[in-house]
C-alpha cells in the first residue's frame, strides 16, 4: 500500500503497525517521535497502531540546530 511518509509517497507493507513500519525502515524507535495523520502516536501504542493506505506519517528526530 502507499502512504505519505515525511511528505513523500512510500510503498510499505499492507496494514503495517507503526512499530513494524519503523522496523521496515530500519529506524530505532528510541529517539524518534511519530505523527499519524497529524496526531502524535505514543511509544506505548507503536505495536498496536495500524497504518492504512493513504495515511500520512511523520517521523522526526533531533538534528543539529541552535536557533
Amino acid at each position, binding site marked *: 500500500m502507499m502512504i505519505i511518509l*515525511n511528505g513523500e509517497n512510500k510503498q510499505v507493507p499492507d496494514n503495517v503497525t507503526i512499530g513494524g513500519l519503523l522496523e521496515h525502515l530500519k529506524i530505532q524507535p528510541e529517539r524518534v*517521535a511519530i505523527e499519524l495523520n*497529524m496526531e502524535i502516536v505514543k511509544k506505548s501504542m507503536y505495536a498496536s497502531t495500524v497504518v492504512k493506505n493513504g495515511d500520512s506519517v511523520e517521523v*522526526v528526530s533531533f538534528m543539529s540546530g*541552535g*536557533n
Partner: protein
Amino acid sequence: MNEDKLVIAGIEFKSRLWVGTGKYKDFTETKRAIEASGSDVVTVAVRRVNITDRSKENLLDYIDPKKYKILPNTAGCYTAKDAIRTAMLAAEAGISKLVKLEVIGDEKTLFPDNEATLEAAKVLVKEGLIVLPYTSDDPIMAKKLADIGCPAVMPLAAPIGSGLGIRNPFNIRIILETVKIPVVVDAGVGTASDVALAMELGCDAVLLNTAIAGAKDPIAMAEAMKYGVLAGRLAYKAGRIPKKLYATASSPLDGLIGS
C-alpha cells in the same frame, strides 16, 4: 563557583553557557567545540528523519543525552500551531520535557512573533512542558511569559546569528528587574566580551551557537566563551565599582618625596 548553581523548574544546570549544535563542519567538530565550551546544555532542532539514506550518523551518537541536557527547539516555526506541534513531538521523542520555544515572525530578522509565542507557550505549559521562550528584549513580554508559567525567559541580544552583541543592555536590565525567574540571553552575541557583558548585567545564562560555530577556530572560541561566562558571572557577583567622572588615586598620598 560550585555553590552558584542555576536551577530552572527544579533542573540543576552546571553551566551558564548553553550552546547550539548547528552550523558545524561535522559532528566531530560539534563534539569538540561543546566539550571545549564546558557547557552541559545543548540545543537541537526537531526535523524529519532521512528515510532514504539511513547510513547517515545521528547527532546524538556524538552528544550523549546522559551527559548533556538536550534542549529541543522549535526553530523554523512561523506559527503557534507549528511550534506547538514541533514541541509536542520533541517531548514525545522522550529525552525531556524541556523545550526552547521559538515562533519566528520574520525571515529577514528572525525576530520572534511575540503574540504567537505567548499563545504557543500557554498551550505548552498546560501540556506540562518546561517552556523556555525566545523573545524580544521586551520587559512586558517577559512578564507575560513569566505570568503564564514559563520558568525562564530568553530575550535576544540581537538578531540570531548577527554577532552584534547586546544591543539594548538597559532593556535586559529592566527585564532582570521585572521578572523573578531566570533570564537567559539567547541569540546575537558575537564574542566572549558580549557574553561577559550579559553575565555582568546579571543574566543567569547565555545561549549561543553561531558565535562559536562560525568562528575561524570554533574550538578556541568555545573555550573563550566559557571564560567569558565565568568572568562575567564572577564580576556580577563581586559587585563592580560605580562609574565616576573623575579620578580616584589608588596609591597613598602620604609619604610622597618632597612633601
